[in-house]
């Protein structure tokens, strides 16, 4: 192994990328893109329709007319017409539907089956909302009929918040925000790793494909060994990734400092009194913000940040090695590259699904084993880190990842050294296996 040459390759890979305009643009635009994406997806998720339903109610119990009130989505009418003409009214479009409420057996009936005649079907959310509304009206009706006092009933409800307290040699106290903050940070790190694997993996793969199709590789190979070239490319692109990560971390620190300074100003009342009043009136929000800040500062950053860096590098090298092997095998055959990248993409996708389940429950068997298995751990383990997993699991995961990286780089090197110089041969799985066995 000639490290001078590897360094030369690293330098070329690094400098040609970092000096590129697309790198600078990408570094700045990616965070903006992520923010935009999350805002847009939030808007889409919370989007509600506003078309309303006009519903005729035939109230055979005489129970609802006084209690079923119109809402934004529902207009209720109680026409005193026979059922048949009501159904005819639905058919002609006078009403969107007809709700038939049967007479109640008793005031304490717990189950009532209503019929709803319509051709305009409601979605899941809307029909749930309608059911809730009717149940609410029945409740009112029953309260009145049974002569119960609503305010007494309310006292039966108890609001619970669980404040976890550590019993071991843990360093910190928990609050009701602990899990939420951990989920947010874990999810952000896991998702970031998912993008890292794809973006940089694809970058290395394209670069190997370009070298092969442009035939520069034949020229390079007279100066370096295939493994030196592959390693140089992996390290060079890895360094690009680290640079980008460092820039983002600096940006985050700068923005949060600016943010907290601005907040500090508003606290001391040097800001518009109108805003000041708003902040004071929303003192509950204020308290929560303080608590979240408290939680953030409680998180064990000295463990999480270095480990995140470790999984960043481990995940990058593991997957980039696989991607570069595929790139070397296929050259310019795009269709071929798609079928060969599938087995690499698949574990990444599985890992991101496991990560989402980990956020809900970080200590299932699945979560533990997936955070140790090296194809999943770069995405799953960062998501678990804020939940303080046991140290043996972190150690096992780290060790497994190191072994995994070593193994996959070795595997990739065996495919790369044959593939990068092989032209005119279709890179099938059978062919790849043959290359692996070649000495």
């Amino acid at each position, binding site marked *: 192994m000639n490290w001078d040459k590897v360094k*030369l390759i690293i330098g070329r890979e690094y400098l040609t990328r970092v000096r*590129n305009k697309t790198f600078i643009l990408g570094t700045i635009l990616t965070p903006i893109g992520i923010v935009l994406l999350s805002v847009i997806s939030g808007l889409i998720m919370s989007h509600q329709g506003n078309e309303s339903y006009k519903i005729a109610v035939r109230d055979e119990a005489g129970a609802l007319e006084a209690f079923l009130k119109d809402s934004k989505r529902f207009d209720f009418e109680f026409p005193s017409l026979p059922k048949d003409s009501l159904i005819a009214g639905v058919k002609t479009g006078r009403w969107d539907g007809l709700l038939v409420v049967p007479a109640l057996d008793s005031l304490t009936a717990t189950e009532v089956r209503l019929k709803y005649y319509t051709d305009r079907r409601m979605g899941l959310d809307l029909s749930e909302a309608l059911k809730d509304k009717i149940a609410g009206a029945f409740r009112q009706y029953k309260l009145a009929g049974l002569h119960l006092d609503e305010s007494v009933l309310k006292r039966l409800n108890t609001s619970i918040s669980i404040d976890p307290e550590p019993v071991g040699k843990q360093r910190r106290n928990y609050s009701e925000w602990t899990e939420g903050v951990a989920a947010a940070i874990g999810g952000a790190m896991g998702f970031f790793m998912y993008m890292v694997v794809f973006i940089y993996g694809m970058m290395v793969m394209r670069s190997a494909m370009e070298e092969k199709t*442009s035939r*520069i590789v034949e*020229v390079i190979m007279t*100066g370096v060994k295939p493994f030196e070239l592959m390693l140089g490319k992996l390290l060079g692109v890895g360094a690009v990734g680290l640079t980008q990560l460092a820039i983002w971390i600096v940006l985050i620190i700068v923005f949060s400092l600016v943010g907290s300074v601005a907040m500090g100003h508003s606290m001391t009342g040097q800001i518009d009194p109108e805003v000041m009043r708003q902040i004071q009136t929303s003192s509950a929000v204020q308290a929560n913000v303080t608590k979240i800040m408290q939680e953030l500062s409680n998180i064990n950053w000295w463990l999480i940040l270095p480990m995140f860096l470790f999984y960043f590098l481990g995940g990058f090298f593991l997957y980039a090695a696989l991607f570069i092997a595929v790139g070397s095998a296929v050259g310019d055959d795009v269709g071929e590259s798609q079928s060969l990248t599938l087995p690499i993409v698949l574990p990444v996708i599985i890992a991101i699904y496991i990560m989402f389940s980990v956020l809900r429950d970080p200590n299932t068997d699945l979560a533990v084993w997936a955070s140790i298995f090296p194809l999943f751990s770069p995405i799953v383990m960062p998501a678990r880190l804020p939940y303080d997993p046991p140290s043996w699991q972190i150690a096992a995961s780290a060790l497994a990842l190191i072994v995994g990286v070593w193994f996959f780089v070795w595997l990739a090197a065996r495919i790369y050294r044959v593939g990068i*110089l092989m032209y005119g041969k279709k890179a099938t799985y059978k062919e790849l296996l043959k290359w692996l066995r070649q000495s």
Partner: protein
Amino acid sequence: MLRVQQVTKRYSNHLAVDRVSFEMPDNAIMGLLGPNGAGKSTLLRMITTITMPDSGQIFFDGEPLARHHISEIGYMPEERGLYKKMKVGEHLIFLARLKGLSPAEARKAVRAWMEKFGILDWWNKKIQELSKGMQQKIQFIATVVHRPKLLIFDEPFSGLDPINTNLIKDEILQLHREGTGVIFSTHRMEQVEELCDYVVLINEGHNILEGRVQDIKEAHKKHIFEINYTGQIASTTLQRLDVVERQEGRLVVHLPHDTSGNTLLRTIVNEPIEIISFREIYPSFNEIFIDLVEEKVAS
């Protein structure tokens, strides 16, 4: 300078190079000739240490070929590419440093060559801005910039325009005069035969002929002579000769093996003609190659 000894290379199920041996004399211009698919490029990849022979050995300057020899070899592959997004100057420096030059040496050598070709003002141009012919000049500089002892060109003139062909030919000959060994590998035998003084003929992975150009041509000559003249040769005289070709003022004659050119001259010197030129025609390597392959098929 270079000795290839019983070298064999097998690719999955076909034998690309089968027990090939030859010895290239010091400071020769050697032609490695053979049709497409004969195994030339595979052989060159082994000589340039890109791949290893399955069996057999290669010696460079008397030592078994090793990685450190690559700094003394310059190789221009048949399919040549460059990084399109890099600038000319830094690309050449990168390639020179891969061959073991220090940063300062690399910069100096690259500048010197670019100056020689009058292209110093391309230094900051990106490769993708250059025409194909310009890129070929860059390729050539990349091949020779580290002052190798042995230069290897695979299909050197394919895709080159006549001006670049001459320019590069002249540079190669100049380097050869300064003591550099040169290997031309090509299937276009006529392109290099006047440049080479030593040839190795390869067919289907086998080495079928090796030797000095003059010796080979001498051994394969067919006793065919060409006379250019003005005037008329009597038909009675012509009838006594084995005429291969006859045009106005040009006669090509095949002589029996035991007669020399002098006999032919004596026969026609009394004719009412003026002889302008008289020479023996040596076979081209194309013809020699085809003869050898046919002989082999026949036997």
